[in-house]
């Protein structure tokens, strides 16, 4: 073989090796990352659905738990300054609809509380339990 041919073959090998390496491992690693994220979100979601189900929720509903401080109480709305609620909301102050009008009776403004929300999405998530922390 001539030297220039050797050089060409060598460079081709490099290029092909790099390409195959990326096609084989690089893309697989990316795909695995994505799959892992999706699976984790799924597991967290299933866990919330299981909680909702155990507490008597309807099919497709999830349950989220959070901690916060009560800021205002109305018969159908409880306003809470809360920490991050995983899978639902960042830390902030939110008004949650109360599942039953008596729910707010057990707590007062300024109380630190634990609470759970149930629903399919943020739009219909309602407060189902709230208790002093």
């Amino acid at each position, binding site marked *: 073989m*001539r030297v*220039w041919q050797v*050089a060409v073959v060598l460079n081709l090998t490099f290029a092909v090796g790099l390409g195959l390496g990326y096609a084989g491992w690089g893309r697989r690693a990316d795909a695995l990352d994505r799959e892992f994220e999706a699976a984790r979100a799924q597991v967290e979601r299933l866990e919330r659905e299981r909680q909702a189900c155990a507490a008597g929720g309807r099919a497709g509903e999830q349950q989220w738990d959070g901690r916060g401080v009560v*800021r205002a109480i109305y018969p159908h709305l409880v306003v809470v300054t809360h920490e991050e609620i995983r899978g639902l909301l960042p830390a902030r102050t939110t008004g949650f609809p109360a599942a039953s009008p008596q729910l707010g009776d057990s707590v007062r*403004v*300024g109380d630190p509380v634990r609470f759970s929300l149930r629903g399919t999405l943020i739009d219909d998530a309602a407060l189902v339990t709230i208790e002093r922390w």
Partner: protein
Amino acid sequence: MRILLLTALSAHLASSVLVVGTFFMLLLAGPSRAPTARRWEGAMVVWGRLLLLVALGSGIVWLLVRTALFEGRAQAALEPRAVLHAVLDTWPGLIWLARHGILVILAAFLAIRSDLTERRDWIAARVEALALGALALALMSASSHAAAISPGTALTVAIDACHLLGTGVWLGGLVALGALLRAASRDADADDRAHAVITARRFSRVALVAMLALMGSGVLNALAQVENIAALVGTPHGRLLLAKVAVLVPILGLAAVNRRRLLPALPGPEAMRRLVAFVGVEAMLALVLLVLAAAMTLTTPARHAEPVWPLPVRLSLDTPLDGSATRWRALLASQLAVLGAVALIASFFSLRRRAPLLAGALALAAVAAAVGLPPFVVDAYPTTYRRPLRTYHATSIASGSAIYWGQCAACHHGTPADLRSASTSRRHAGELFWLVSHGRPERGMPAFENRLEEAQRWDVINFIRALGTAAGSKSLGAQVQLDGAWLIAPDFTISVGPLAPGALRDYRGRRMVLLVLYTLPGSRARISELARKYNLLSTLGVEIIAVPMQTSADAIRELGASPPVLFPVVTDGNAAIIATYGMFASGPHAELLIDRQGYVRAIWRDDTGEIQVQVERLNEEKSVPPFPDDHVH
């Protein structure tokens, strides 16, 4: 161990660099039939093989020593598992593997005995060798200090790679050229000499470009790694850089002589011999540069090291130009400097009077410096550029406050040595640190090095800063002054009940903050008003943070349920906030408007104005000041 590491790294760096330059030179010289040139080419290929062996050998030593240092025991260097771990599980290890893989392939490629009589083969062989060598060299930048800079990693790595390749072309080419010229000056016929001269001229052109690229990328590298003068003269990394520049100056001088005087005189035998000698000296100096560069990669980058200022003085541009004598000096110096600049420019255009003009320009510059600089020279201490241990945070300022009122106020509050004076505010934080630590016993200032912890000394310095700005904050009132952001709002922790705490700086770049310091029952009406306006203000980009002046676990409940107060109310750590912000605005009720960048822009003391107008003014402000630093200066 360190010495061994430095030696191995220097040898590795030098051989990798020389390989690139050698093959670059072969390509630059082109194929030749002249016997001396053929012999030189053969010698260069052998030299290239030798360099590769050195590179591989020193590379392995470097890896082993690094493993030992990494594991913290000398024996680890010989344990296959530890070495494998260092190679496969660390980023620099992977880069090492890739580079040495390429070097092995290059070595195998060179080992093939091949027939290069055909032009195509010759070119392919040389280009391939150059490409592999260059790839192995450039990859080095991927595990250098440059790769640790973010954001902008890709750019700094590219600049570093450019620097390495420039070194390769220039230094490796220089050595190869030296060998060619030597061979040609000894035993060559006219043909050979012509070939050598042509090659030298070509290289001279390439070297100029390579040198410019080297200096350009070197300056950019230094800007990224060193960042400021203090880091340059005050850290080992910076001083190595200075040493590099010092070695570079004679190299540039030699290169200029070669280019201007010797190259045009070729192929005269005298000029040829001189050139050989000069090229040799240049290459030796360049190898010193390489060792310094290797040492730099082994020291902490200057931007991460604590600078120790070596001089008893420094220049300070914020010295006030008061007093007519000072102003006269400044005027005179600036005129002299302008004259000097004119002389300098003239020296470029005048061919005959260049030397006297240049000397005159330098003399003028020196006189201008001697006249103009003294007012700007101020005392400096080893810690002048030290970075504060504590951030400019309300808790730090509050504990500094306690120390100040307990230990310093007797001598410093309302006395001639008042720390609120402008001259103290102009001092760097590191300078105050030195003065507080070591005192000035001869002038009545005790040393606190043994009486206060280091953190406490930084606390008190943060407090002194806040105290200094508090005096100026009197000028801040209910009206936002456009483009007048200067009062840095010290950061503080926002904790509401037992929830995970946030911080003022979380709002930076996102929302303005209206900080409300309140006392019940006096503030109740105002709090209710704010509660009703919360929605509107929130829409305008304002968060309200209420801090009770009196600590109370029930602060939220005490505000009452109607109207509902929905903005954050700090229930923990409010004492530090009150101690800090109380310096800007005391009283039972005060409000401070903090802009999105983190500067206090308006203060309402007792009176409560129309904040919506001020918020709208801030929303309309066009120029945005930079975010304030987390540490005082």
